[in-house]
């Protein structure tokens, strides 16, 4: 059964690549056809919606503001894979971008944050995020270079001053929540992120037996794989593994 699933993932991944190539060929730069512009969030309807968190970073840059790195293609590709291999009812016609102080955030129990090295929160943001996580929300942090940890830790310490990060090992249920991931050896997509990836988690009451609140993909950028999976930038098996990581993390966040 495992082999069938892997083969199926490969097939769907390949299809996504082909579809992506075709679509990208139409794109001509900027946002893809599948996603609406940055200001057009989808209304809440109970279906799973990919939610990327925005924050004030002070600069834009060639790739846009840091929170938008890999947007929108990264999530578009992930959603296509997620809804193909599982029966998550998810939106493929768009995703949402929300700020931490936006009450709408609370309608989406799973949120995604990138480039935490540039992340700054207001007091209102801090209160909002704390409430969100304590009530049952789950946050995935990605595109996380090694130098970003102090800033990230500083922001999270405002949310949970006593918070303690635990490194996840391979036997953690997250890595078996959908696909069976046998090793946490997916290399960072580029060297400047760090020598190897570590997956760190914050738990309720700092108790690994209780609910996970945040998972941080430290020293890696899994969404980079998703974004460029159709370009041949990375080997197919690494792209597949990245999708498996993503699907597992999202599945885990939805179910735990």
């Amino acid at each position, binding site marked *: 059964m495992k082999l*069938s*699933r892997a083969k199926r993932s490969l097939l769907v991944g390949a299809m996504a690549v082909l579809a992506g190539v075709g679509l990208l060929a139409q794109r001509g730069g900027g946002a893809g056809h599948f996603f609406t512009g940055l200001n057009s969030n989808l209304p809440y309807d109970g279906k799973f919606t990919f939610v990327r968190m925005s924050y004030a970073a002070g600069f834009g840059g060639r790739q846009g503001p840091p929170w938008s790195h890999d947007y929108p293609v990264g999530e578009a590709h992930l959603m296509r894979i997620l809804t193909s*291999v599982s029966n998550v*009812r998810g939106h493929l016609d768009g995703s949402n971008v929300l700020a931490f102080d936006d009450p709408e955030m609370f309608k989406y129990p799973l949120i995604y944050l990138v480039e935490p090295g540039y992340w700054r929160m207001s007091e209102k943001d801090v209160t909002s995020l704390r409430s969100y996580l304590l009530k*049952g929300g789950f946050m995935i942090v990605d595109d996380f270079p090694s130098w970003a940890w102090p800033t990230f830790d500083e922001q999270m310490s405002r949310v949970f001053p006593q918070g303690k990060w635990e490194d996840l090992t391979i036997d953690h249920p997250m890595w078996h929540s959908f696909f069976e991931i046998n090793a946490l050896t997916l290399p960072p997509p580029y060297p400047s992120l760090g020598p190897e990836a570590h997956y760190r988690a914050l738990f309720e009451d700092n108790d690994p037996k209780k609910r996970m609140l945040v998972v941080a993909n430290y020293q890696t950028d899994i969404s980079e794989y998703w974004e460029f999976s159709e370009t041949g930038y990375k080997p197919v098996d690494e792209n597949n593994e990245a999708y498996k990581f993503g699907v597992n993390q999202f599945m885990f966040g939805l179910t735990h």
Partner: protein
Amino acid sequence: MIESIFRFFFKYERLVFEQGRFVFGATRSMWLIVAIAAITGVYVVFTYIQVGTLRGRARGILLAMRIALLLVALFAVLRPMLLLKVAVPQQNFVGVILDDSRSMQVADESGKARGDFVRDAFGRADARILAELGKRFVPRVFRFSSAAERLQTTADLNFQGTATRLGDALDRAREELSGLPVAGLVVVTDGADNAESTIDGPIAGLKAQGMPVFAVGVGKDRLSRDVQLTRVEAPRRVLKGAALIVDVVVSQTGYAGATVPIVVEDEGRTVATQDVHLPGDGESQTVKVRFKIGEVGPRAFRFRIPVQANEEVAQNNQRDVLIDVYNRRERILYVEGEPRPEPKFIRMATDRDDGLAVALLQRTAEATTNAPDKYLRLNVTSPEELLGGFPTTRAELFQYRGIILGSMEAGAFTPDQQRMLEDFVDVRGGGLLALGGDRAFAEGGWAGTPLSNALPIALDPANKTALQPPLELIVKPTRTGQSHPATQIADSEDAATAKWKELPPLYSVNVAPAASLKPGATLLLSGTDQRGRDQVVLAFQRYGRGKTLALPVQDTWLWRMHSKMPVEDMTHHNLWQRLARWLVDGVPERTMVSAAPDRVQKGEPVTLTSDVMDPEYRGVNEGRIAAHVTAPSGKVEDVVMEWTVEQDGEYRARFTPTEDGLYRIAVDGQDKAGAAVERGTMAMRVAPSDAEYFDAAMRTPLLRRIAEETEGRFFRAAETSSLVDAISYSGKGVTVTDERELWDMPIVLLCLMGLMAGEWLFRRTKGLA
């Protein structure tokens, strides 16, 4: 006074006229007398016609007076009399049945205890009524309460009987006096019968033997000042930590409008107090009392209202209830068809409750050509549990006590699995809760399936597609939902009412209008959409041995996560813990034990009934089943239980408790093949009954009915002066016919004199005299 006046004018008491037969006893030829009277009458008429001075009205009046005078005289001459069958003195027996129960201690008989009247009137051989009876009859005295017996000496009367079985007492007296000449039975009681059988049989027996009952009612028809805690409706078995809402019925007279507390005590410790505003005199009111169950084991809860000033009966202010509190994690199977937040948040709520164990079978991918449905299993008790997906046998499925069915289409289940879902409720007696979602209810193809029969809402097969956009619903409880245990989101009704108004809306993708509620279902929560239409949000119905609930919304988790819900707000947790507990509340075990009666006194036989089921909840027949009865002292008695044959799996036995206190009963054994059956237990408290103090007012209608249907009479205690005569004139037993002359009644003489005087006066006024 009226009786005295009647006797003065009519020579005899009214009883004689009621019992006697009126006849004319004339010995001469009646024709001759009538002829003479007729001639006289004609002469009178002729005389008056001749009188020229008499005209019209005056003539008529005088004529009438004369004729009336003649008639009265004729009446007297014809020798009117009453024929009475009178019991021959000392030739007849009279049964005297005295109520010796506790209700006779109530002091409402002219300021004294009812029992005092009994002692005064019947308590000694020379007591007022008994002595009078003794002059004319041979009395046989009995006493009764829960049983009747001959009374050797009235000093044995102690008014301590814990039940009043009036019918049994009448039967006993009738049987003992059967074959003897009996003038009647005198029963002296307040009529506060609390037997389980009706009085019809005993009355029929008395009528058949022609034995009249002369009922003497003691006490007031209605107590003047009394508060009564009439009934407490509490479950017999609950899970530890349950938050109960118990119906307590209160009635009163003399304290209308007062506010009194209902105090709930657990083995002497106060666990709740609830004020109740008393209803009008004679009315009953149901109060919902809330309290939480703490300790495990059979617990004696006492519900009481403090005795009020000048209350006539204090003993009916409390009720004891035995609740068996058990401690285990009730297993619920939650089957979810798609990864979504709802199961995560439901588990977050139920995992905090030590009394619940929700095993989640979460489908994460649907079957393909090469692979079956993929599942994630959480909270399973063993690696093998649910390994093959949804159970394929009843034995496996029926291990759970509740099922939560998420957004999973009917097509994901085989036809047999669909039937199993219905049987889970109908046969096993489990609780099933169906949640809303894209693949739920009619939208999930459940219309027309066996499970749709069990659901509390009707599914329209035309609804094949989930609503998009979903309906936004403002949710509020119905009147029933406000006080239902499943929907308590706060510790008090007022707090819950306020909370419901604050909750954010929920969303539904399923069509479930209010009109889809089935006739036997109860709506607990309704939702109003933006067009003002009402939708079912939570409804339930009993189905077979179990119950089903429908919750056709997709995101109750918003009541936890929504931005306006504070972190410390536990509404969502409370709701799901209570909903899940109620889902499995009352779900039967494989072996169930019950006792009848459930309120027992020492020495009273008890019938034990046990329903013994196999793992598929089919009755186990021809098993070797035994009840192990452990008395409060620790002594164990083993009682073999016999299969009743009338019903699959039903076994019965009897035993008689010999000690007061808590009895524990365990039933186990083997089926026909020798396999052990599941053990079932119950607890039972044996104590003197307090039933006598409840509804202790005199039951005049009952006593009247007994008297009238047996051709006897009803007397109030203060009006027994004619009791002995009434028995004498009943016409039963050995009797002689007594002639009572009526011609010499004072009223006859008065009529004659009155008519004569009246005629003379009238004639004078007309100048004729």
